[in-house]
């Protein structure tokens, strides 16, 4: 794998942070949120700030921008120096003048970071209106010009568009145009691609690199994704709990990490190598899905609408103890399939047989006895447990529904807690007393309590930090070993799918484009779309866990990138 290796020691220093301390407003004695942060970024350099959620990455960027939420956080020490100007305690008017001109920022959610009620053209142009004396016509010309630079198509139309009329990638391009139109010296990019699909992510990363090249901008790039880091960084700072624990050029960091935390972080990063093939199962299929169709909407009172075909003619089977992964980008219909199988929504057509019974067309009441065969784990660990219920109550809900006595269910719950590696006495606590990973374990325990034949994991690890992600994946593996449960694993992340799936099914726009054993699909994709997905996976050439390049890079003959 090629890393960037340019030496920046001679370049102009754009940003210098020394011993920066940020704490809770009005509480100087409370534990600081940022502690003694030192950071240097030079012109043209891309500096990546990595760390897990809560490590203080975003707070660092907001402190630099002078955008800390006043009533929550404040700078309690240290200095921030932007090209020789100290801005640590700069007046709001001074900071305002610097923003966009000297430092600019792009945010994680292009969906929410653009004002939904203003035309995107106006939003870019506003920067010019605020900071320059350009006439209306000149400003518009420059805006359109900038929009072309970020490779937006049909700029005249898009200028007039509102954010909701654009795709996520286009919105992020608008954000970039807005940030760079005044040619700032420093661009702060806070997880700018996290909310995007991999293919879009790749394009945006390339765009940022291109713009950086063209303008010589220094970039402070905040991300949790080691793959992205590997692709773009010149230098890297690793953050943990408000401190920078390690700082190094990218190659050094990936090949020879010094700190334990860094090593731990890297070792948790999954790679694209498929899991070792398991012995083929011979038992009867747990679930058979045939010709599943799901169309949303349609009908209408005065206007006939077509409806959205979210899933079309989906077929698959899973045997006990085996895992089928459904991968695809947002809108591919993968979650729709999961929800149809769970009968959380009613499929428009097709068959779903579970434990030998056809359940796709059963009424809710008829369905009830079959619910226990199917269980699901959701993506968001913060919302998948009732916040008002104790863990014990959540764990007992299902078994009690199926006639288990309360005492028995409690005993079972205690066992389950051990199974998912949580203490028994945590049963009396409420979900908000647990971390995200712990909650996801509880959710898994709740599903397992039903002794299901099929466990559906709908993006079950996507919201978790990599280290936690790895633990949860291990847990799922253990459970599968122990109970021989079949698993349907829905994910957008090919690397995760590679870790856990026996078979992979790739969906695009509601259609299954490829279906086969995991190692075959991943190493020898037949469909262009699969190939594009694999190509776009950041850092796919690097085996992070082993601090070296991948031995076997998935072959991409004839790839069309």
């Amino acid at each position: 794998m090629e890393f960037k290796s340019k030496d920046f020691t001679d370049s102009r220093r754009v940003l210098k942070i020394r011993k920066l301390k940020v704490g809770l407003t009005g509480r100087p004695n409370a534990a600081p949120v940022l502690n003694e942060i030192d950071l240097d970024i030079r012109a043209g350099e891309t500096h990546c700030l990595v760390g897990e959620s809560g490590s203080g990455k975003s707070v660092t960027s907001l402190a630099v921008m002078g955008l800390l939420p006043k009533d929550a956080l404040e700078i309690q020490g240290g200095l921030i120096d932007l090209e020789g100007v100290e801005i640590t305690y700069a007046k709001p008017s001074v900071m305002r003048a610097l923003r966009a001109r000297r430092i600019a920022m792009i945010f994680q959610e292009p969906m929410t970071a653009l004002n939904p009620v203003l035309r995107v053209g106006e939003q870019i142009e506003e920067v010019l209106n605020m900071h320059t004396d350009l006439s209306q016509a000149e400003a518009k010309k420059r805006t359109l010009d900038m929009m072309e630079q970020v490779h937006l198509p049909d700029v005249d139309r898009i200028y007039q568009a509102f954010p909701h009329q654009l795709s996520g990638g286009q919105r992020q391009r608008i954000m970039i145009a807005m940030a760079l139109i005044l040619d700032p010296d420093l661009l702060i990019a806070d997880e700018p691609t996290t909310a995007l699909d991999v293919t879009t992510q790749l394009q945006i990363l390339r765009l940022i690199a291109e713009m950086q090249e063209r303008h010589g901008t220094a970039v402070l790039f905040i991300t949790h994704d080691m793959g992205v880091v590997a692709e773009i960084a010149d230098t890297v700072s690793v953050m943990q709990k408000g401190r920078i624990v390690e700082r190094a050029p990218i190659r050094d960091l990936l090949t020879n990490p010094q700190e334990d935390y860094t090593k731990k972080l890297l070792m948790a990063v999954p790679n694209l190598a498929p899991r070792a093939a398991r012995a083929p199962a011979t038992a009867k299929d747990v679930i058979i899905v045939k010709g599943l169709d799901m169309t949303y909407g349609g009908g209408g009172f005065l206007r006939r609408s077509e409806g959205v075909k979210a899933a079309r003619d989906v077929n698959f089977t899973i045997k006990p103890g085996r895992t089928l992964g459904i991968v695809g980008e947002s809108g591919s219909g993968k979650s729709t399939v999961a929800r149809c199988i769970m009968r959380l929504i009613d499929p428009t057509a097709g068959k779903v047989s579970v434990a030998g019974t056809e359940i796709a067309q059963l009424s809710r009441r008829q369905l009830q006895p079959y619910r226990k065969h199917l269980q699901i784990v959701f993506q968001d660990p913060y919302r998948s447990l009732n916040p008002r219920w104790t863990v014990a109550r959540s764990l007992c809900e299902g078994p009690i529904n199926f006639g288990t006595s309360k005492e028995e269910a409690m005993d079972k719950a205690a066992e389950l807690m051990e199974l998912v590696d949580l203490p028994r006495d945590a049963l009396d606590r409420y979900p908000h007393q647990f971390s995200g990973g712990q909650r996801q374990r509880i959710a898994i325990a709740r599903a397992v309590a039903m002794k299901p034949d099929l466990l559906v994991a709908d993006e079950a690890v996507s919201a978790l930090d990599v280290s936690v992600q790895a633990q949860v994946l291990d847990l799922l593996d253990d459970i599968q070993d122990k109970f021989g449960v079949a698993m349907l694993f829905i994910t957008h992340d090919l690397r995760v799918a590679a870790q856990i799936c026996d078979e992979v099914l790739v969906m695009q726009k509601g259609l299954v484009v490829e279906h086969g054993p995991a190692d075959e699909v991943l190493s020898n994709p037949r469909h262009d779309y699969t190939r594009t997905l694999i190509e776009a996976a950041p850092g796919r050439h690097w085996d992070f866990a082993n601090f070296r390049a991948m031995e076997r890079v998935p072959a991409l003959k004839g790839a069309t990138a």
Partner: protein
Amino acid sequence: MTEIPTSRHSAFQVLTGLFSLPAGARIGIGPMIAAVILLIIVLASVLAPLYVPYNPLSMDALSRLKPPSEAHWLGTDPYGRDTFSRVMTGGRVSLLIGVGAAVVSVAVGLMIGLVAGFFRAADGVIMRIMDSLMAIPAILLAIALVALNGPSLSSVIIAITVPEVPRVVRLVRSVVLSAREEPYVEAAIALGSSMPKILIQHLMPNTFAPLIVQGTYICASAILIEAILSFLGAGVSTEIPTWGNIMAEGRTYFQIKPGLIFWPGLMLSLCILAINLLGDTARDLLDPRMKKREG
């Protein structure tokens, strides 16, 4: 072994768990004062019969409209009744109307709202009826209802309740509609829980926090509406003193004896002010977004 906070859960935590109150949320001095004022008003009103110097109903034609004196601290009204005794006693019924209207509206609205929110089939019909009730101007409806049932305490409460119910229904329905999409509700479906069980055990508790807030507003506005109904001659019986009808009876004397409006008005305003302030505080504290921010 994963680390877990080990503190024993207290009753307070159970409560905070119930209403999603962020632990350690700070309550300012304003709401504290409001709570104290409200407590004093409630106690003073409830205990009024124990300490007021006169029977609030006993009239004395010879001491009509007297200015404040040692015998009558706040003077007397056009019937020669003691204003202080009436104002203090008046709080009982006013508060009863406020609390009664709040409890009834919330209870009825909750039931209808749960049904509307969860059963799509019933939703359309229920919401049309609610829209209709909302479209009928509250005061006119109240006057008509009071005329229908006679001006008893219960008809005033019903009159105030009817136009409030649709608002509660809408609130409950919207909470249920959004909570219905929550993964934990879907998980409950997957666990085979029955619809009534999901409705009552999972969905209903979500409505408590906004309903408490809404309840305080209804309580405050009910006390106020009672005053307006009295003004229009459709309040509770003149034999039962309320802040509203004390003011309504005193309104023509506004220029010659402003105390007849001022004192009940002051009590009423303080009371509504306090209730509203507490409602606002509750809203801020119970707002799930607050929790997310801190969580």
